[in-house]
């Protein structure tokens, strides 16, 4: 036997040893060895929906874009109204190519200090972060600096009991803290950047911490009885139920914000003024409607349709599944697909081709499982 020399170099997460100690099964993902599950995807999924789960998402890219004119510089690359984003506010946005194709989806937070230089904190997908950094370096003006916070880990605490557990650990943190808001927090020696956001459809927080302090924070949070570590497997089934697209599967340079159902990320001002990549094409799609649409599908039976399954209406092929799997909360399979606009209406009966058979499916609204984000001032 000869050893293959062509083994892809996988990076280790700051919490690699911590995951293994807790019984995680590690798999390659986005260039890292990542925990796919600890006790099992179903149990972890249900735990997060009912209690609180701690996810290690340190593979994601944490970037700082800083300088006078940073908002305008970002607006040249994203369709969001960044100049209207106040300090401490988070917004979902999209990195677009010149054609309006989606290069990545990301979260942008205004982290400008009072009286300080404009500064924005971006969290981008792990698998695309190097391309994103190259794209930003190429297109940001020279006076805008781009820093990659590669010495920081990112943990997500998600679930209906996340706020209670976090408040018990860091008293006062959750006060006056709504969904899509962010703040810095000093927890002992730990300098944290916390946002109330996530990728599960539940209330939750994403916490940026120095890589060499990540183990302290993860250990402390998991000491709370509501909190268990949760793997990537449940992260995927949770986000699918929440109707949230996954870059590289539901989003790609071949998709655009309108077809993808992400037109909400194109701010009103930007619709009026344009000036973002692919604006001409995207504004036309907004006005005329996109020829294909990302839709949610509920399947009958228990067999799932996975990415790549063809969608049929009678004998006509009308689309392709981009994500699919079993929904633990609903007890049946669900999927996201791009289908012809004529087949995208709620209630449309379609068929999905799986292993040569046709599985009946119906277009349903997303999210499949209602979001339970925490809105300030809203009654519970």
């Amino acid at each position, binding site marked *: 036997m000869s050893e293959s020399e062509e083994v892809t170099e996988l990076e280790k997460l700051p919490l690699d040893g911590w995951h293994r100690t807790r019984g995680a099964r590690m798999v390659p993902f986005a260039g890292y060895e990542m925990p*796919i*599950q600890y006790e*099992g*995807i*179903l*149990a972890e*999924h249900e735990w997060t929906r009912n209690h609180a789960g701690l996810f290690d998402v340190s593979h994601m890219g944490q970037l700082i874009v800083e300088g006078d004119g940073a908002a305008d510089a970002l607006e040249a690359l994203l369709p969001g109204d960044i100049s209207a984003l106040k300090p401490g506010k988070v917004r979902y946005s999209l990195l677009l190519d010149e054609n309006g194709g989606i290069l990545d989806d990301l979260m942008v937070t205004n982290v400008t200090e009072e009286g300080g230089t404009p500064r924005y904190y971006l969290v981008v997908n792990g698998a695309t972060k190097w391309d994103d950094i190259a794209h930003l370096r190429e297109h940001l003006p020279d006076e805008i600096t781009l820093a990659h916070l590669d010495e920081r880990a990112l943990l997500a605490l998600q679930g209906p009991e996340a706020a209670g557990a976090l408040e018990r650990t860091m008293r006062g943190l959750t006060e006056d803290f709504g969904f899509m808001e962010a703040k810095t927090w000093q927890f002992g020696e730990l300098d944290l950047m916390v946002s109330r956001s996530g990728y599960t459809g539940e209330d939750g927080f994403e916490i940026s911490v120095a890589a060499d302090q990540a183990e302290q924070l993860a250990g402390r949070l998991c000491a709370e009885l509501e909190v268990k570590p949760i793997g990537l*497997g449940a992260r*995927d*089934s949770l986000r699918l139920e929440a109707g949230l697209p996954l870059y590289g599967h539901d989003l790609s340079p071949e998709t655009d914000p309108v077809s993808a159902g992400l037109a909400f990320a194109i701010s009103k001002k930007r619709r009026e003024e344009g000036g973002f990549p692919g604006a001409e094409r995207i504004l036309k799609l907004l006005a005329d409607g996109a020829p294909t649409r990302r839709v949610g599908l509920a399947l009958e039976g*228990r*067999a*799932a349709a*996975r990415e790549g399954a063809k969608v049929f209406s009678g004998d006509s092929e009308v689309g392709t599944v981009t994500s699919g*799997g*079993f929904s*633990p909360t609903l007890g049946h*399979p669900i999927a996201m697909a791009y289908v012809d606009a004529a087949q995208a209406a709620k209630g449309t009966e379609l068929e999905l081709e799986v*292993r040569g058979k046709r599985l009946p499916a119906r277009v349903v609204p997303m999210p499949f499982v209602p979001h339970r984000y925490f809105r300030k001032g809203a009654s519970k």
Partner: protein
Amino acid sequence: MTRYFTEDHEWIEVDGQTATVGITDYAQSQLGDIVFVEVPAEGTSVAKGNEAAVVESVKAASDVYSPVTGVVIEGNPALEDDPALVNSAPEGDGWFFKLTITQPNELDALMDAEKYKAFCDSL
């Protein structure tokens, strides 16, 4: 009765001309939570090494291959309502299908329990 194993992590328990097929404990632990199983219908002809059943975890669908050539007598009806039996009792109540063996000499190439254990340990 003798039980044999394949490198694809199926087991086959032979009783004369008939046999029962399932996936091993190692296989179920690798797959994780099983949410759907498709077993072959009675009368289906299956060939050694060819797809005979499908098992789906939350993450992915996997093929289950028939360890030998034969004709299916019965698919396990219990798996339709309770696919998690494959996790809880992979080498017992979570069996996939029973078949009549038509090429008994194919069994010679399969592993016994001891060899299979060594095979798994080497993975």
